[in-house]
């Protein structure tokens, strides 16, 4: 069981590695926002599974912050693209 949890964690980091390609290449800013957003979602799931692997439920809070704040970042970037931040 523990091997399964750790394997999922490693596989999620592999998915993040695929997404870095789009973060590097993406011709427009919107592409990069999408890649970054998806990266933090996958990171949140990786953290959840690592918490279950390590058996410490306090790590789960980091996943909560990661998933919620990545979307906040997406909204900030969208606003910046449309009319500037200030």
């Amino acid at each position, binding site marked *: 069981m523990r*091997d399964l949890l*750790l*394997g999922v*964690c*490693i596989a999620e*980091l*592999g998915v*993040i*590695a695929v997404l*870095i390609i789009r*973060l*590097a290449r*993406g*011709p*427009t*800013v919107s592409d*990069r*926002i999408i890649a*970054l957003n998806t*990266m*933090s979602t996958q*990171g949140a799931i*990786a*953290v959840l599974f*690592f*918490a279950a692997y*390590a058996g*410490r439920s*306090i*790590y789960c*809070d*980091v996943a909560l*912050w*990661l998933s919620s*704040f*990545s979307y*906040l*970042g997406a909204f*900030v*970037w969208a606003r*910046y*693209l449309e009319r*500037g*931040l*200030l």
Partner: protein
Amino acid sequence: MTGFWVLDYLCLAGILTCAALVVFMNNRSGSVMALSGVGTLMSVLFVVLGAPDVAHAEVIVGAIALPVLYLVAIGKIRTDVPDRGELGEEHASRK
């Protein structure tokens, strides 16, 4: 125990790649975004190393607050009227 080291080195490799992107990307907004990616991956690394409190701080500071401050600074030093090309879309600026 080997699995733990695989995780550790994968996180480190991701952070290094993003940091190299920050330096070598020739697009300002893209660099800021790669910086945000560094923050995200760094928080995952902190969790893996067993420091959830530092990871909390890193999520807020590294992934959100620092890039937003950079964006505000970039907006302040921009003297011309922000037209479509300056908003960071390479397609528009190349024409």
